[in-house]
């Protein structure tokens, strides 16, 4: 299989009703995939889901009997970076299998159909798989004016609410869909909100990142497909297997932080020696993501390994943290100006209060009645 992955997705974007009722095991066997290949697939899947290799037999068992789900993918105020990331997931063969397996019934960037046909496909999928389909959303939803972002004349809000109604679960992909992301950044001109802000009655899995790590997206998809349940989530809706530890805690440069060895600039000795990037604004300590282990670009590298501080893109409001190159312990705003005004103001206030004190003392001195020996007793 050497065909373009995008094409693979496109090829499967049509509604293939024939496969809907088959289990994955049946689908694979009918395609002539050997058991050994299936085991390899399960091993790769376990690795992708960040699960222990001991789970491989369980995954194999679950996948064999898993049924093919319908997936509807909605894109709102977004940059398509999340989709780009997904389609560059490096487990190409496995990916193909997954996308062979799932029925991606609507994804307006990837699907072949356009216009009314596309919307009809969505409506049909919703109707046929009511209560069972998986809804994937990327992008935030503008609430100030519905006209800021529409698809086929339908506002993002209306489309989300309508589509969410019959979904079994929702996966919010990317920081925009999970926490508002860049559209939500101060001053948030469109009134952008996240999926979780609007929908409270459906299970939502947040897969933040700008973009999220491709295998994390597929890993979460696979978890849902394999076990039919949502993975264990942290307090802001992220799967713990991927977002359970901070970048800082898993960073291979952590020992340099502990030793107090920091790169001060991007081209000093410290930077060349691969020392800690904290002073260059690294948000690793407050960022929870799997970059340090999963890495990017087919596991080639990741930002910190490439010498750049973590931006903290999988955290809410990462855009408003006072600057990517400002370290975490620094105040986000410029304090110098404030300090100068304060000194001036306080000096004036201090002089006023000092004058009051002086005044008070002077009046006490003025009120002094000379004490003589006759004044010593009451």
């Amino acid at each position: 299989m050497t065909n373009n992955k995008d094409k693979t997705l496109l090829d499967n974007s049509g509604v293939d009703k024939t496969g809907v009722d088959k289990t994955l095991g049946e689908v694979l066997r009918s395609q002539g995939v050997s058991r050994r290949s299936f085991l390899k697939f399960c091993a790769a899947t376990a690795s992708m889901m960040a699960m222990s290799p001991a789970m491989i037999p369980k995954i194999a068992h679950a996948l064999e009997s898993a049924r093919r789900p319908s997936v509807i993918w909605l894109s709102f105020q977004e940059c398509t970076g999340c989709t780009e990331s997904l389609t560059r997931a490096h487990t190409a063969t496995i990916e193909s299998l997954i996308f062979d397996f799932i029925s991606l019934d609507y994804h307006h960037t990837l699907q072949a159909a356009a216009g009314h046909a596309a919307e009809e496909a969505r409506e049909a999928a919703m109707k046929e798989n009511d209560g069972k389909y998986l809804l994937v959303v990327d992008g935030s939803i503008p609430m100030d004016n519905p006209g800021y972002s529409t698809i086929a004349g339908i506002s993002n809000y209306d489309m989300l609410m309508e589509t969410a109604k019959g979904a079994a679960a929702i996966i919010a992909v990317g920081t925009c869909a999970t926490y508002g992301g860049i559209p939500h950044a101060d001053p948030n001109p469109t009134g952008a909100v996240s999926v979780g802000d609007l929908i409270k009655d459906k299970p939502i899995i947040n897969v933040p990142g700008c973009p999220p790590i491709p295998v994390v997206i597929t890993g979460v998809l696979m978890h849902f497909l394999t076990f039919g349940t949502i993975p264990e989530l942290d307090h802001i809706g992220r799967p713990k297997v991927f977002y359970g530890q901070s970048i800082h805690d898993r960073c291979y440069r952590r020992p340099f932080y502990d030793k107090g060895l920091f790169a001060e600039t991007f081209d000093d000795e410290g930077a060349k020696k691969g020392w800690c990037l904290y002073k260059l604004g690294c948000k690793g300590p407050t960022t929870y993501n799997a970059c340090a282990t999963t890495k990017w670009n087919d596991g080639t590298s990741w930002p910190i390994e490439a010498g750049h501080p973590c931006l903290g893109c999988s955290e809410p409001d990462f855009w408003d943290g006072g600057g990517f190159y400002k370290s975490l312990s620094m105040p986000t705003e410029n304090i110098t100006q404030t300090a100068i005004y304060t000194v001036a103001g306080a000096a004036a206030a201090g002089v006023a209060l000092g004058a009051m004190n002086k005044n008070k003392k002077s009046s006490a001195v003025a009120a002094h009645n000379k004490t003589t020996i006759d004044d010593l007793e009451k």
Partner: protein
Amino acid sequence: MSASLEKGINALKEQVDSTVASFFSSCVHCGICSEACLFYTETGCPTSTPIHKAEPLRRIWKSEYTLLGRVGKMFGLTAKVDEEMLTKWETRVYDNCTLCGRCSMVCPMGIDIALLIRKTREGMAAAGHAPEDLIGATKRAVTIGSPMGVKLPALLAQIKHVEKDTGLKIPLDVEGAEYMLLLSSMEIMNFPEFIGAIAKIFTKAGVSWTISSEAFEATNSGIQIGVADIAAELVQRIVDAAEKLKVKTVISPECGHAYMAIRWEGPNLVGKPFSFKVRHILEILDEFRKDGRLKITGKETQRLTYHDPCQISRRGGVIEQPRKLIDMFSDNFVEMPDHGKMNWCCGAGGGVSSNERADEVRLKVFQRKKDQLDEIKPDAIVSACSNCRIHLEDGLEEYNMDIPLLSLTETLAEHLAE
């Protein structure tokens, strides 16, 4: 106008300056000052913690001179100074503090706690919360001229005795003399030998000196009770006499607080610098020593120690001189464990000895001095303050210790070469 709370509060307000404000701003309630105060170490009573004694002044500073205190006052949150409080504090401020200033030496923040308590007394006295005995002494000082009621005829009588004993003339009211000697009532009444010693030394040294019949009293009850107006009046008498006799230097005798009163507080009380110098007798004697005017013969063989009177050493700056002078007549001198600026007070200064109410605690805290003496076991104690001397004798008797007290000046005079 009689004493009142209002007057007292006003007096406290007058006392606050940048030193007071910085001192109170810096206190962290660490309690180290308590361990420097014999009224705490020997009684274990936490109300004797030095900084706590200045609480009335602190409250006034806080409520009148700080932003937060003023705001708090508006809402009734800042602690107030009232009659009840001052009544409680009267014994703390007068009976359990000798203004010895040892606390001021150990405070890690550098708070001059003794100064704060001295200032607190100004408010206490103005509010009518000074001890009865101190009021009596102060009245006598102003009306009679001496807190002990010693009048001129009594002095003249003692002078007569001394002249007879020594065969030396005691110069009285000599205009243009270089030195004018002040005397404490105690010296006049209990230790007239002091006058004789001075006469011997000064005659041998060949300097002119005199005693003023109008201002011979060195002590200043106004300082002890804490009434600057009265203290100023008493200082003014000395200034007037010194100016009238056109002397170059006024000598403060062997009395601690007298030196503080005339040397350090005096010009500030009367509001102008003196036209004459003020020196402690030990400073004068040391100058004589340096100039070779003192010829000494024979050495004391007994083991001597020196008790530093607080107002002369720690608060006065006369620390080296007595030691150099003692060296002239002693080969067997030993220092107490804490000495010089860190010496422990005898327990009777700052008006405590004039306050009968404090007699019991005064003798109780003498334990501190006893412990110091027990460590070095001297044969005799030399000192330079009559008040210390009387109380030390009192205390030694109370604790059944037999160590004689010597006046430095008198002992020195005994060793003058003929």
